[in-house]
């Protein structure tokens, strides 16, 4: 068995319900060493429930969750992970150094205090009480706690919320360093540029299911279409009949259309309407791919109505 290829965490056909609401609906995921896996999705997509199951906080109703081949509720499995949650009010009167020493004590072979502080950029904060720190500094301390145990798998839930640009980039550098050491990272974020900058694999969830999984480029390619918007007297219904046009509709006074051969369509548009103005051609970025994917999943009925 190839050690590098074997997953360090795995969800197989996992279902989790809260009352009538199915938060996670038959999810299959594998996490590997040395990759940054970004879990994206709108609020309520099931990201938090997925992470909670991987951390052993929540048990699945069906399916199997494995962390290093064990039940995540087993301490031996969790000794190999580091955790940074979205909101955790750490004891305000404890100093940063004390928090690091305490969290490090849970692990078999934690990092040296100063190595941790250096990596997370909290060296100058070690003697300060947690309550005296700014929101961004507290976030950095929480990141330091996540990496102090030399984890093989790091969970980062919205890690850079409240951080300024510089702090955010420092955290990204530190994450890349950890991955270079061989750790795997699970990242949930609302900042798509963060996923774009860091992730080697992106998974988009909506309604408890995986919509798309692959590299950032794969995800972008799923929305290979480009968008064209312009003001024209041409009617959407006529343009929609052109063979290169995937979809066309009126958006207020503008014509909106999507196509995979923008150059041909633009030429044809300009030929057909000499007065055409405000021409825009847009390439789908991760953000658009994401919006496209999740909008389709979130409101299929609404989309059908628009198309009709």
């Amino acid at each position, binding site marked *: 068995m190839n050690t590098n290829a074997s997953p360090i965490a795995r969800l197989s056909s996992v279902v989790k319900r809260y009352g009538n609401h199915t938060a996670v609906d038959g999810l299959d995921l594998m996490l590997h060493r040395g990759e940054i896996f970004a879990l994206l999705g709108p609020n309520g997509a099931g990201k938090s429930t997925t992470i909670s199951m991987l951390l052993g906080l929540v048990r699945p109703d069906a399916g199997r969750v494995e962390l290093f081949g064990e039940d995540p509720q087993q301490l031996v499995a969790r000794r190999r992970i580091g955790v940074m*949650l979205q909101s955790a009010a750490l004891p305000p009167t404890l100093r940063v150094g004390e928090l690091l020493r305490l969290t490090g004590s849970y692990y078999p072979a934690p990092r040296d205090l100063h190595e941790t502080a250096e990596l997370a950029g909290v060296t100058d904060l070690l003697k300060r009480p947690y309550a005296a720190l700014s929101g961004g500094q507290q976030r950095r301390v929480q990141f330091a706690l996540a990496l102090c145990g030399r984890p093989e798998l790091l969970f980062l839930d919205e890690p850079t919320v409240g951080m300024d640009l510089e702090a955010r980039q420092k955290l990204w550098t530190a994450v890349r360093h950890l991955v270079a050491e061989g750790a795997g990272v699970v990242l949930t974020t609302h900042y798509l540029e963060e996923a774009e900058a860091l992730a080697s694999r992106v998974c988009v969830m909506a309604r408890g299911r995986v919509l798309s999984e692959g590299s950032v480029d794969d995800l972008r390619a799923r929305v290979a279409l480009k968008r064209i918007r312009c003001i024209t007297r041409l009617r959407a219904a006529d343009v929609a009949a052109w063979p290169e046009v995937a979809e066309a509709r009126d958006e207020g006074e503008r014509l909106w259309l999507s196509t995979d051969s923008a150059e041909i369509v633009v030429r044809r548009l300009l030929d057909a309407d000499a007065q055409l103005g405000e021409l825009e051609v847009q390439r789908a970025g991760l953000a658009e791919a994401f919006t496209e994917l999740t909008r389709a999943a979130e409101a299929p009925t609404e989309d059908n109505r628009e198309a009709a």
Partner: protein
Amino acid sequence: MNAVSSAMPAASASREMGFSRVLGAYLQEARAECLRYLRNPGFMIPTLILPTAFYLMFGILIGRANGPDAPRYLLAAYGTFGVMSPGLFGFGVALSMERDNGLLTLKRALPMPPGAYLLGKVVMSIFAAAVVSCILVLLATLVAHVQLSAAQTAGLFATNLFGALPFCAMGLMLGMFIKGTGGPGIVNLIYLPMAFMSGLWFPLSLMPKAVQQIALVLPPYHLNQVALNVVGLGQEPVWPHVAALAAFTAVFLAIAVRRLRRHG
């Protein structure tokens, strides 16, 4: 376990956690709990200052007017009052807050040894009980000139330290039911009337019959009876009170565990 080690031999070896490191984690947790509360005035004032101030006022300044035994009598009573709050506030209120603010979730996700969280809070409560007992005994002997034998002093310490445990259990139970910022208010609503109705501030013999009956089902009443016995002012046999305290502890724990199983 075998499947894991065959898949990842190198990693597994370094992930074994020796007994001394696990013990170290328990100690770090207890140390951190003690430190964080020692530095928190919101906890220290009700825990240390209130019993001390009450004892100075009612036990020493006014108390002497009530007879030669008053400072001795109230040393037992305010000792009981003092060891109630670490468990109720340090345990109950803290647990209700930490269930709400994400700290407990983070600790459960981290590989904290099972029980370290609760044990840390017990150690902190006993530590605070020891500190408040020290202050009261010093005030009693040095300021109020209460004569205590070495056996009585040791007995009072033992009573107060063990006496903190039923209130830890009660705090744990309350903390499992209350969630969030309502905690301090609700616990105060229980703490202060319970102290009053247990006869900690005024002797029960001066109170209506109904209050005397209610006192029988309140843990502080029984702890106070044990403490009074230890300082030489009790009349009854001690063991029914000790048994009652043990029973309260067991019941509170059982309710807390039941709640934990159902709601997590």
